[in-house]
């Protein structure tokens, strides 16, 4: 039997899910964090139930993909209870959904979450009266602190089919139709129910969080704040983690301790040179795959996930949609697209899934294309920042400008080619909240675990591939075949081909390969910039490619990949020749 968590977006369903099951699904402060259904097992008293977390919905009338998914789950027969998670301070919206859920005639409980925030705003809810009217148990919680979770669990076990004491509700038929008249009728009914259950006293005005919220969306203050955030990220992820952190791990931890230890042991005990090289050679699993994964990428993604977690939980990200709406309009999108794009800076694979929050098919295709093309993922971004911080801030800005220019041009062009409509910009903005250290550390930890699970095997696979190609003499052949592209067009050393080969598996692995080349002093500043632009624009990693197939279909995924591959080299070539031409004229841009 299942327990299904349902509710409006950004009310804390995933926090409740985590509290019920003891597992962890990502929790953030913006609507649309959960795009997929999660399942887990939870113990309620002596019984065990399977718990299902669903994407947030505003109505059971299936308009959006999320609403369809949730409706499907609710129409299954083996539901022990529905737990509707509601935002206590936004009860009107929650009750509109409650009225629809009641019609399903499935045992349910109404959970008034975030009751602390409601209290702060002077909102008092008569839980007992509300419970009597709706004919269901109503339980208050503050899920992030665990307050009320035990009572909620008790209520879930006791849950009964609703027996509402509202005269007109029995033949209200809110489920069947969603025409204007029905919607109006429903909102009137909600108002009449809340009339004597809700008491709002004047809230204390001008809270600090509201002030912060407002200045982040006004261009005059919001744009400088955005720059400050970017600079802070550059310093923390680029300078600190990718510079000092990687240095420490690569040179001290791996260079002086781990690698010498393994090299020592292996040289001593393993006689077969093939096996030895396989482990600690140029393309050795330990010396290449493990070193890249743990010494170069790991410190960077840790820093990035920490920083990003703070941004996510503060409620800052959706506010960017207000500032960026007009820019996205030139690309046939609207400000809502900023969410998947910014999430893409974390992980393109996850972000491709998040494209689901967009309303039209055209928008989803455009965002998937731009994610594949122009958005570097965290690991890659960190490596790029690390390499460019060794050049100059100007080089970093140039790299950002090129990517933005390519993105806007491609977006503009593609929006004319891809058929379909743009949807209007309507975005809910969550309140600014103080990020909770506990959630950020759990989230970062969960993401790192996921990262290691997903990335390390591919790093190993890529290394094995390189090792095999090298042994079979194929590497030379491939390098020669691609020489016109890599050497002639991009002006890079032939060895850079390896970075692009492993870049097919993961772009961050490719970037790490370039990092190693540049550290070895094999790349000049133009080569660094060109190679970084190309590897950023390059084809998505394998995981992102598969998700793109799953979400958008094979044909679209192939077209996108082919387009991205060609444009990456084209832009890289133009950049290479342009910069060299300028240099010959005595102009050094970097």
């Amino acid at each position, binding site marked *: 039997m299942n327990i299904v968590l349902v509710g409006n977006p950004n009310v804390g369903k995933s926090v409740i899910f985590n509290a019920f099951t003891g597992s962890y699904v990502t929790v953030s402060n913006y609507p649309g964090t959960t795009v997929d259904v999660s399942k887990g097992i939870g113990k309620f008293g002596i019984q065990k139930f399977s718990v299902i977390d669903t994407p947030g919905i505003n109505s059971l009338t299936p308009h959006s993909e999320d609403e369809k998914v949730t409706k499907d789950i609710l129409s299954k027969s083996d539901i022990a209870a529905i737990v509707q998670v509601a935002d206590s301070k936004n009860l009107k*919206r929650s009750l509109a959904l409650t009225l629809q859920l009641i019609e399903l005639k499935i045992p349910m409980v109404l959970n008034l979450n975030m009751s602390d925030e409601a209290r702060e705003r002077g909102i008092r809810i008569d839980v007992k009266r509300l419970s009597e009217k709706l004919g269901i148990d109503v339980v208050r919680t503050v899920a992030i602190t665990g307050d009320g979770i035990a009572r909620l669990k008790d209520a879930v076990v006791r849950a009964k089919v609703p027996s509402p004491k509202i005269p007109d509700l029995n033949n209200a038929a809110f489920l069947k139709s969603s025409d204007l008249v029905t919607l109006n009728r429903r909102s009137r009914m909600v108002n009449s129910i809340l009339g004597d259950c809700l008491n709002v006293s004047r809230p204390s005005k001008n809270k600090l969080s509201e002030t912060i919220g407002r200045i982040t969306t006004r261009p005059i203050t919001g744009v400088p704040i955005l720059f400050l955030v970017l600079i802070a990220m550059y310093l923390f992820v680029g300078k600190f983690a990718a510079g000092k952190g990687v240095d420490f791990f690569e040179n001290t931890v791996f260079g002086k301790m781990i690698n010498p230890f393994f090299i020592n042991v292996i040289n001593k005990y393993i006689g077969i040179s093939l096996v030895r090289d396989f482990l600690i050679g140029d393309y050795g699993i330990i010396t290449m795959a493990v070193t890249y994964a743990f010494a170069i990428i790991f410190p960077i993604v840790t820093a990035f996930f920490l920083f990003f977690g703070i941004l996510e939980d503060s409620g800052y990200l959706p506010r960017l949609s207000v500032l960026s709406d007009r820019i996205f309009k030139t690309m046939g999108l609207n400000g809502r697209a900023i969410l998947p794009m910014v999430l893409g800076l974390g992980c393109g694979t996850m972000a491709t899934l998040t494209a689901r929050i967009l309303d039209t098919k055209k928008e989803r295709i455009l965002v998937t294309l731009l994610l594949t093309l122009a958005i570097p993922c965290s690991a890659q971004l960190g490596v790029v920042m690390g390499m460019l911080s060794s050049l100059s801030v100007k080089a970093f800005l140039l790299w950002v400008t090129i990517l933005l220019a390519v993105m806007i041009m491609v977006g503009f062009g593609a929006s004319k080619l891809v058929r379909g409509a743009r949807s209007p910009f309507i975005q809910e903005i969550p309140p600014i909240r103080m990020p909770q250290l506990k959630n950020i550390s759990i989230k970062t930890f969960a993401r790192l675990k996921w990262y290691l699970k997903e990335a390390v095997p591919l790093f190993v696979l890529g290394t094995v591939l390189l090792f095999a190609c090298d042994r079979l003499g194929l590497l030379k052949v491939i390098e020669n075949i691609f020489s016109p592209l890599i050497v002639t067009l991009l002006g890079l050393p032939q060895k850079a081909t390896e970075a692009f080969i492993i870049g097919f598996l993961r772009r961050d692995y490719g970037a790490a390969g370039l990092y190693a080349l540049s550290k070895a002093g094999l790349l000049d500043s133009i080569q660094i910039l060109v190679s970084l632009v190309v590897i950023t624009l390059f084809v998505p990693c394998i995981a992102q490619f598969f998700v793109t197939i799953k979400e958008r279909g094979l044909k679209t995924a192939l077209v996108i990949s082919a387009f991205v591959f060609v444009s990456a080299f084209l832009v890289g070539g133009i950049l290479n020749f342009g910069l060299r031409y300028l240099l010959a004229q005595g102009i050094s841009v970097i």
Partner: protein
Amino acid sequence: MEKNKRREEALSIVWEDREKKIYGAQAVRDKISQKVEEDIFPELIREGYLAEERGLVKFTTSGEALAKDVIRRQRLAERLLVDVLEIGRGEMDSAACEFEHILSKEVVESICTLLGHPTECPHGLPIPRGECCAKAKDLLESIVIPLSKLEPGEAGRIVYVLTHEHPQLHKLMSLGIVPGARISVHQVSPSVVIQVEETQVALEEEIAKEVYIKRLRGTS
């Protein structure tokens, strides 16, 4: 055509001609005959709606009052059809023509208030003022205006949401943007950011133009 309708039609022609500075009695009479398919000009003079002086046509006081009322109804009906129901120009002309004759005084006043006491019809011709418009001048806050016209810091109560597409309306409603809801405006550029109850929503201007509100004075 029944008699009342014919009379209203004829008087509105005289009003329109007066706007175009056409006063020639013969020309006006011909036009009326053509439009209502009957030569009722002499009848209108006999009934005391019009007067003829030296070949020029003139309204009597009662004639002018009736014509003003007819024109007002007609042009408000046009506005209603175009603004709220989004009926195309061509269709509008024929529909409004029928519509105006069945509007009672109370309904006309409500329509005028709902539309925010518009001053021009969709063709750009002036709409004669009514009693409600005079009252509205004193009570500015009762005017229904699009949300996009509010300044940051102002507040209003939603009167209606124009429907372009169903999913869009549905989305707005599920965010709490429903008639009767109180909203306040945080900022208007580059996007409109509003607060409805405890929900903050960012909207593009095109959507903000479709949400009609009554401005609330005082507290924001």
